[in-house]
């Protein structure tokens, strides 16, 4: 009896996955635990593990193909079994990938005949379809989305079972840019000069997720913003001293960054002001028992926010090593969904780009986000009242006013500032 391997749901927000590479080929014997393929989701590239013993009889998707959750990828069975009933999953033209899926599907299960070829023979596969990968939207919502060129996959439905209804679509008054016509694509391809070329590109999965989450955050969370300029000389000196020590230790991996010190200081400050480490839901407020620190990492075409777990229990070296490992994984798209979820506080840093000050958008379900600017040389007034050359850094804190009041936010930022201005005190916390 053959088994159909289907595209698994590898992240909460995934609707389709792309086969990056097949590790096994047709005819090969496979066993439970073997890695069959590498699958790229909206968040990361992950390994597809096999749970069946047998022979790989047929591949139903090629490398580079996008396959919806629940759609067949491969067939495993006994050598010589007939697999002619399994058809290769057809591909949508890439330029239309997301919007086609969002708008063209019929709303009920009585699919027209041209879609039936997608399905494979065993009935258990077809019964899975309704529960996976589909975007649930009312017929009216689909029609409006089609007319206004809105991608339903970026909309959070407010109807029953998360169904997207008219008001969800209408509230997105800004229609997304039109899809490129075939002539535009041709023009763009033949254009060889360096001048900018107007073009439209399909929204990537990552951008969809970023758009949805940040839109939800900025439109549903009552943000307020605090800022504090601190003397950044002490933290700079501390980092220099620490790295000089580390340089003499051959077992040390590498240097610590200012950001590592800030992450450590945040974890320690949260222990003093635990209200910052909370989440809102309509009926209750959750105060988290641990500090799971997320930090923003810019990657091609977007950003990700990997999470350092239980940061309050970690020392500077562990935080620094975790951060470096997560940054490497982020850039190679190897982060697992686990490493990207469950944060309780987020730090975002644009200091390396020379930005003096900014205010981030809260990363739900966090209560606040710390925005770190660059260390900038400027005249400062020291404790003796003398003006002298110094360095300052401006910290921004964006808070969810449902959870954090001004005084609490101010207390957090003041404590954090004081720790960073007196880094030695990090030793006693």
């Amino acid at each position, binding site marked *: 009896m053959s088994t159909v391997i289907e595209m698994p749901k590898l992240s909460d927000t995934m609707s389709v996955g792309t086969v990056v590479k097949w590790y096994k080929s047709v005819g090969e014997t496979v066993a439970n635990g073997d890695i069959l393929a590498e699958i790229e989701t909206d968040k990361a590239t992950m390994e597809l593990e096999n749970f069946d013993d047998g022979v790989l009889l047929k591949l139903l998707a090629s490398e580079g193909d996008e396959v919806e959750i629940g759609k067949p990828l491969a067939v495993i069975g006994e050598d010589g079994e007939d697999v002619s009933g399994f058809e290769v999953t057809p591909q949508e033209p890439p330029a239309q990938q997301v919007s086609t899926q969002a708008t063209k599907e019929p709303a009920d299960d009585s699919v027209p005949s041209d879609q039936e070829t997608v399905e494979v023979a065993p009935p258990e596969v077809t019964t899975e379809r309704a529960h996976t990968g589909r975007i649930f939207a*009312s017929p*009216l919502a*689909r029609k409006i989305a089609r007319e206004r060129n809105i991608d339903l996959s970026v909309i959070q439905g407010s*109807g*029953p079972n998360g169904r997207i*209804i*008219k008001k969800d679509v209408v509230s997105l008054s800004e229609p997304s840019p039109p899809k490129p016509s075939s002539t535009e694509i041709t023009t763009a391809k033949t254009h060889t000069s360096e001048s900018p070329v107007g073009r439209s590109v399909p929204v990537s999965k990552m951008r969809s997720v970023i758009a949805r989450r940040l839109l939800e955050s900025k439109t549903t969370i009552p943000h307020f913003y605090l800022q504090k300029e601190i003397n950044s000389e002490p933290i700079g000196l501390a980092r220099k001293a620490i790295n000089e020590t580390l340089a003499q230790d051959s077992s040390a991996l590498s240097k610590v960054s200012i950001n590592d010190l800030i992450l450590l200081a945040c974890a320690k400050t949260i222990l003093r002001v635990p209200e910052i480490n909370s989440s809102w839901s309509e009926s209750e407020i959750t105060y988290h028992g641990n500090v799971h620190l997320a930090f923003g990492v810019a990657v091609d075409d977007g950003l990700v926010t990997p999470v350092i777990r239980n940061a309050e229990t970690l020392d500077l070296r562990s935080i620094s090593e975790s951060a470096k490992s997560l940054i490497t994984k982020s850039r190679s798209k190897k982060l697992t969904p686990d490493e990207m979820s469950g944060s309780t506080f987020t730090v975002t840093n644009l200091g390396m780009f020379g930005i003096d000050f900014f205010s981030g958008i809260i990363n739900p379900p966090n209560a606040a986000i710390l925005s770190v600017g660059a260390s900038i040389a400027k005249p400062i007034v020291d404790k003796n009242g003398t003006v002298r050359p110094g360095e300052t850094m401006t910290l921004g804190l964006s808070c969810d006013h449902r959870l954090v009041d001004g005084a609490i936010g101010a207390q957090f930022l003041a404590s954090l500032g004081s720790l960073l201005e007196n880094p030695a005190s990090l030793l006693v916390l």
Partner: protein
Amino acid sequence: MAEITYRDALNQALSEEISRDPNVVLMGEEVAQFKGSYKVSEGLLEKFGPDKIIDTPISEAAFSGLAVGAAMMGMRPVVEFMFWSFCYVAFDQIFNNAANVRYMSGGLINVPIVFRGPANGGTNVGATHSHTPENFAANTPGLKVICPSTPADAKGMMKAAIRDNDPVCVMENTILYNLKGEVPDDEDFIIPLGKARLACEGTDLSIIAHGRSVQVALQVAETLSEKHNVSVEVLDLRSIRPLDLEAILQTVRKTNRVLLVEENKPFCGVDAQIAYLIQEQAFDHLDAPIKRVSAIDVPQAYSKALESFQIPNHDRVLAKALELI
């Protein structure tokens, strides 16, 4: 315009049409001397005599067949069933003969007949007296089916039915007989068959109903407006066949949400067909699945308490409406 009961409105329609056309006669069990089981024909025997107002034996098959034959010969009989539930003993006469003669005769013979009487539950008369066969009748090509819900409609549509050249089944309701409303005195007040009526206008939800369910829908619309700030449009179908599909589609396009309410049993009920037509012709206008409230799908309860829950009541319709918004 006078305010009169649904019963008197029917009486006026019969009286006016018998006066107007010498071919119109009323026949049925106890329509003459007893003035009708529900007193719809009160005063008509005195006014028109036993040639026009004819008491029949307890034999629906015989007098329905007699009336179909008379209609084929050019008369315009109005046949009263004490309950529409009793039409089942005259099934062949109504559903085979009356419905098909025009077609079978190649259009040479038409059958201008009206079958009328109450078709409703809610009065504690048991399973065999509480049928609502508008779906059976509407399922038969050749028959017209109407379910007036107000006194004015009862008069205007009854007159239209009598003047119609094909068989028309008029499904009345014993609970509506005492309902009062403004009814025009005009002898030519005719409500054309196949025209639905917007019973109230709204923007958030359409309740489509026929017969007494329209009155229930209006009460629910009031509750939704007062307590839930929901604006409900109520469409009274009035006529099941011909069906005013355009009016249905218009309200669906307006509110995008539909609740169908009827006293019919749900399986193959009238609203099953309406739900089909809406999804077929207004699919892209639906923002939610179509929902229905029908009679609960068991033989009519004799227990008054059970029956009042079995047929669509205010609370059941309200609960279903709240699921939709």
